[in-house]
């Protein structure tokens, strides 16, 4: 576990974004834009001193947990975990290839360090509640973070889980909604508009912050604030851009959503250059 400075975190997020682009372009499929939007939060969790973990001991019962409920964004998770020392970059370059455990959606049976097998949207927060309840039973102090997508909030199970987390006053659980504004077929506001997330979750009894989720300083501050909440579950509504920061390139391609499409080699090159 390392704790990087704000500038170092910003640099690390760039490295992770480059990996996201490289591995999905190499795979020829996947969800790079869904991964890019989440890169700052995931970087902060793994490298900002928020999560306790040891890549050499992925089953350590005292480790903090990160459940990626929006499993299609696993390139961001694989990239962060490679940077953290769980895997090598060469290994994650096998993404989505036959025989590779770096599957198209996370598979906990094949990859130590992956906390949940996700990909059927809506289940991660409930799984996170299970981890949080287990911590309480065992008197352990680990924290569970769950990242969902804003489109995923259309799943009814998420709201079952939100109510249950409040019932058990799970102060060891933090949900992050990666509100990148798009889902598969279009803008989330047009498909099923649930976007007043803060008042909705507050009405369920949660502590909620809404932040600019592609601004590392805001991300770090929000995670620090969440750590200070000791009486209830917390949620960070992380307003992001799907594909950040290469959205202009995607707009030029005529598809700012770019859902579930890898970048061509040429586009990947431009995008990596744009990361700076």
């Amino acid at each position, binding site marked *: 576990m390392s704790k990087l400075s704000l500038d170092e975190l910003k640099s690390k997020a760039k490295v992770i974004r480059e990996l996201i682009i490289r591995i999905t372009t190499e795979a020829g499929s996947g969800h790079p834009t869904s991964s890019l939007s989440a890169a700052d939060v995931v970087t902060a969790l793994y490298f900002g001193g928020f999560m306790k973990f040891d890549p050499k001991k992925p089953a350590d019962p005292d480790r903090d947990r990160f459940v990626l409920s929006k499993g299609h964004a696993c390139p961001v998770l694989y990239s962060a975990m490679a940077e953290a020392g769980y895997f090598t970059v060469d290994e994650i370059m096998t993404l989505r290839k036959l025989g590779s455990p770096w599957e198209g959606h996370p598979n906990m049976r094949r990859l130590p360090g992956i906390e949940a097998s996700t990909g059927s949207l809506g289940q991660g927060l409930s799984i996170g*509640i299970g981890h949080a309840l287990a911590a309480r039973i065992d008197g352990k102090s680990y924290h569970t973070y769950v990242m969902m997508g804003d489109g995923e909030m259309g799943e009814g199970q998420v709201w079952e889980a939100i109510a249950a987390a409040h019932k058990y006053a799970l102060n060891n659980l933090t949900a992050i909604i990666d509100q990148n504004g798009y889902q598969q077929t279009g803008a989330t506001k047009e498909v099923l508009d649930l976007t007043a997330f803060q008042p909705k979750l507050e009405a369920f009894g949660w502590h909620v912050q809404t932040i600019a989720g592609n601004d590392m300083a805001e991300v770090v501050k929000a995670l620090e604030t969440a750590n200070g909440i000791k009486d209830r579950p917390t949620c960070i509504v992380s307003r992001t851009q799907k594909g950040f920061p290469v959205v202009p390139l995607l707009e030029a391609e005529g598809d700012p959503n770019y859902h579930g499409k890898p970048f061509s080699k040429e586009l990947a090159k431009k995008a990596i250059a744009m990361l700076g």
Partner: protein
Amino acid sequence: MHLGEISGLSLGAATRDAFGDALKELGATNQHIVTVDGDVGNSTRTEPFALAHPDRAFNVGIAESNMVSVAGGLAACGKIPVVASFACFLMDNAFDQIRMSVAFPQLNVKLVGSHAGISIGEDGPSQMGIEDVALACSLPGLTVVVPSDAACTKEATRACLEHDGPTYLRVGRGKVATIYPKGCPFELGKAITVREGTDATIIANGLMVAAAIDAATLCEPLGISCRVIDLHTIKPIDRDAIAAAARETGAIVVAEEHLQHGGLGSAVAQVVVETAPVPMRFVNVGDQYAESGDPQGLLDKYGLTAKAVADAVQEAHGSK
């Protein structure tokens, strides 16, 4: 007249009660056992455990999807979560959660479906789990158990909790005949021959084991000697016992309180066809939903009777 009465079997406890008693007993010594309920714990009989161990019992409300995935998370942390609801609400409603949060990651979750079958009676078809075994059997790595009486359920509960991997245990609402008055020699995946016979075999589970024993009694004066097998574990299935029954008796009837597709009958037929094809007949609810009514009347109307099983035996035996 209850199933088993023709053969002099006395009426014992409901299998859900046996499950609840066993859970409470086992939960007292194994601190890893927890329950996750969908607000029907007083029906499924997880309640005695929950009252004894409130710190290890979670009622998440009428929210089966969340219930199952929460259990997956608990299991990932080393707990042994018992997730109980009505068979239909658990298996049918939360099927994808069972797929993704339990079966695919092979987490050590103990699913328990109560109120299985049409014998729940007056509450009617919306509450009857009659597709549950087919759904459960479709999931790779899920052990599926349908115990026949209270003693069998007690041992099945213990075996499921001791098994390292996901399990589905199916129990019923009403009292059922006692098949094992001296205790059940239960082993996961191992069929129990409850009656020897040479001319045909009746393979059954759940309350239909009592019907099978009655059918064997009815067939005896007709000169047909029936073997009766309690095939409590459908997955993994005891291929050897089925193949031996087919070879040695030459005809097989499968009886279950379930729809005709995807349950015990389908599983046994697959083994018979692959090992020793012999004439087969099937006694089940058919391809239909039942209705409200008294349990005995429902079993009679939908053909889950000793006579129906005996008729099927004569048919199968006659087509050898």
